[in-house]
């Protein structure tokens, strides 16, 4: 095996990518060495088990993935607006729409939300860390190596090219030979381990580690949305794990679960994929609902209207999410009765979602709204998401779906729900909780520029696509030089670049705010409008979060605390705090499993076995690891708290 056999060759764009990857790597290594930061990187970040730091690493990775997926999107849009330019060839186009979809869902949306959950949920429930901090670090590194594995595919071995749904038989060994599809399978499998573990971890954290007195129905709504999401993760992800494993065995070891020959059932892949895939879209939308609820309540300066109805509608959405999967492949032709059943269950979901929309509107009703950047993202979400939701109900009508299926109408629909829902929520949540993470706010003026550019770009990009779909333009199409489609395609591309510009301004704002923003002095960063416990902590948040855990017996406990002039800190009740030790085991264990996955991708079985043995050895090491953490002394807590509170 020669190195040129596995590198992708022959395309100028790819060569440029290789050069830039090499340059960035050299630059990072140089900077770390020059500023002598290797020890710092290892001690403070790579070995951390602190939920706040892990959350920041999740969010940074997700932003990088958003950049990667966004570049894919803009390359596609250039190709579609200028079909005669020969910018991409068909193979490259197939690879790009596949990686765009997979990266945006699996490596951008989920890590971004999980990152926010990591940082905020323990703070909201008055916990000092996750229930299993070691497992949390393990989850992050499994996601990280899965994402890296998936991302190197475009320079090594070739990217997957069968769509993010990876339908068989196209994605099987017979029709997609080579490592491309294996990258998809192993990348998702590896990061799926982390997602599943995070689901369990957060569920246990929320159920077992709430502040004394806090009942489930006292929890902040974002924590509720996280809990419901965790249930969906724990029940949906095993289906993906099994489906991926079956397809892996098909491709690498020659079994015939999803093949055309040998009694295989290719459509069973679609069935299993969407049994996971539909709950998956609620995994990325429910936390978004939670973030919007928090932001809207904060800046409307009112308690969230219909808290109980909000919670129950999330639970009902979670239940229904397991009963609608067939609406993704109505056109398989399962028959009128089967399609009707799933058509009805699909439309039922509009009911609890509608309840939530009206509750947000009722929260805003007659309130004194403060138009901050997170509030702008949240307010623009409501009408934009409704456009996506209503077209979703149209797609849910089985008979009509035969017309809309796999057209740009569908593409417009799911971008309307995923961007207006999930991406807006990620931005809203990041800006909203940014002062808790970094000790300073993001600049409001630049933030508004980023918002308006992204918001306008989004509608200009995707609204025309509904009409392209109705004009008959199918998705995943490479040649589009048909006169009727061209104007709308060009408008759409302009919008895509507007979104790109908005993202660039957003990232610039991170740098600008780091340089020039005022540093926070209180913990309650948004003009004292914070309602939940995370705002009761000092900024920066001490590594143990709460010196003394408060007693909570109501929704929005921090509102009353402020009225009564209290804080969560009570120096007379200080006790030594038990904290987990940092450890390098998670990153080492997951790099071994990453190596095993890499071996399987190229079907180098000895490499795979070596990696697996390394992983098992690390698990045995963990099994006999008796490090029970350490205690922070009362004196040290006193010193930290007095300094932070200016006592």
């Amino acid at each position, binding site marked *: 095996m020669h190195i040129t056999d596995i590198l992708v060759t022959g395309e100028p764009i790819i060569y440029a990518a290789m050069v830039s990857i090499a340059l960035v790597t050299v630059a990072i290594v140089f900077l770390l060495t020059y500023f002598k930061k290797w020890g710092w990187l290892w001690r403070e970040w790579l070995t951390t088990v602190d939920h706040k730091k892990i959350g920041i690493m999740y969010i940074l990775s997700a932003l990088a993935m958003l950049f990667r997926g966004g570049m894919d999107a803009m390359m596609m849009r250039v190709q579609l607006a200028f079909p005669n330019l020969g910018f991409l060839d068909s193979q490259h186009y197939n690879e790009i729409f596949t990686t765009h979809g997979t990266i945006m869902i699996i490596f951008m949306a989920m890590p971004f939300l999980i990152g926010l959950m990591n940082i905020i949920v323990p703070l909201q429930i008055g916990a000092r860390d996750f229930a299993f901090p070691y497992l949390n670090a393990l989850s992050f590194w499994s996601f990280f190596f899965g994402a890296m594995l998936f991302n190197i595919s475009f320079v090594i071995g070739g990217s997957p090219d069968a769509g993010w749904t990876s339908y068989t038989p196209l994605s099987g060994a017979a029709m997609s030979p080579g490592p491309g599809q294996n990258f998809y399978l192993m990348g998702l499998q590896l990061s799926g381990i982390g997602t599943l573990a995070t689901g369990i971890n957060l569920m246990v954290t929320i159920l077992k580690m709430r502040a004394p007195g806090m009942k489930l129905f006292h929890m902040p709504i974002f924590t509720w949305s996280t809990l419901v999401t965790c*249930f969906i993760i724990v*029940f949906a992800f095993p*289906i993906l794990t099994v489906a991926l494993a079956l397809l892996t065995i098909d491709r690498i070891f020659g079994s015939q679960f999803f093949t*055309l020959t040998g*009694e295989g*059932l290719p*459509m*069973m892949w679609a*069935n*299993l994929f969407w*049994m996971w895939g539909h709950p998956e879209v609620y995994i990325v939308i429910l936390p978004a609902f939670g973030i919007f609820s928090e932001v809207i309540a904060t800046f409307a300066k009112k308690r969230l209207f219909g808290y109980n109805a909000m919670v129950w509608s999330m639970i009902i959405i979670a239940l229904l999410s*397991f*009963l609608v*999967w*067939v609406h993704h492949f109505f056109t398989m032709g*399962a*028959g*009128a*009765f*089967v399609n009707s*059943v*799933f058509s009805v269950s699909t439309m039922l979901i509009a009911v609890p979602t509608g309840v939530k929309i009206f509750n947000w509107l009722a929260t805003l009703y007659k309130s004194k709204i403060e138009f901050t950047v997170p509030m702008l993202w949240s307010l623009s979400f409501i009408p934009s998401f409704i456009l996506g939701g209503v077209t979703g109900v149209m797609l849910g009508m089985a008979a009509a779906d035969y017309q809309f299926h796999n057209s740009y109408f569908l593409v417009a629909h799911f971008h309307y729900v995923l961007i207006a829902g999930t991406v807006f929520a990620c931005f809203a949540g990041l800006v909203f909780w940014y002062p808790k993470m970094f000790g300073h706010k993001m600049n409001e003026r630049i933030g508004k520029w980023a918002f308006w550019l992204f918001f306008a770009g989004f509608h200009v990009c995707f609204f025309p696509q509904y009409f392209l779909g109705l004009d008959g333009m199918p998705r995943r199409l490479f040649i589009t030089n048909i006169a009727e489609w061209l104007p709308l395609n060009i408008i759409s591309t302009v919008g895509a670049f507007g979104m790109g510009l908005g993202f660039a301004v957003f990232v610039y704002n991170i740098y600008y705010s780091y340089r020039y923003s005022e540093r926070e002095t209180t913990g309650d960063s948004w003009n004292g409008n914070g309602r939940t416990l995370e705002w009761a902590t000092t900024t920066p948040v001490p590594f143990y979060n709460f010196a003394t855990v408060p007693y909570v017996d109501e929704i929005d406990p921090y509102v009353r605390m402020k009225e009564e002039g209290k804080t969560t800190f009570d120096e007379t009740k200080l006790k030594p705090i*038990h904290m987990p030790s940092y450890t390098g085991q998670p990153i080492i264990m997951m790099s071994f499993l990453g190596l095993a996955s890499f071996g399987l991708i190229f079907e180098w079985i000895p490499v795979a076995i070596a990696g697996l043995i390394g992983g098992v050895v690390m698990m045995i090491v963990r*099994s006999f690891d*008796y490090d*029970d953490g350490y205690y922070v002394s009362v004196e040290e807590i006193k010193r930290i708290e007095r300094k932070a509170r200016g006592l």
Partner: protein
Amino acid sequence: MASSKKGIPKNHVIGFILSLVMTVAAAWAAIRSDLPVTWVIIGIMVLALLQAGVQLFMFMHVIEAGSGGGHVPWNMMFHGFALAAILVAGSLFTMSFGFDHGDHGGGSGGGDEQFEEQPEEHAGH
């Protein structure tokens, strides 16, 4: 936060080895053995039940004395069964119900038809 006792956790090691052995046995039954298909399926089903038993009794605190039954994951077991039912029944329903294209599937006798229809579907390719 249970305080960790030192020593080999016997239950866990035995459970781990048992689950590996049963997995290998199931793979062997499916790939290498000459058993008739019916027996292979029955065998795998039995192994699956045993496997679930190993998980519940050796890892999942079902018989944990100290907790006074408080840790027994009945709730999650119920959800697990509900999900498995949706998965199996739902797959049968969507993948084989009404696939003969003539019958519009009133729902009567669906269960019996399903298994007979599947081979026809393959013959069609």
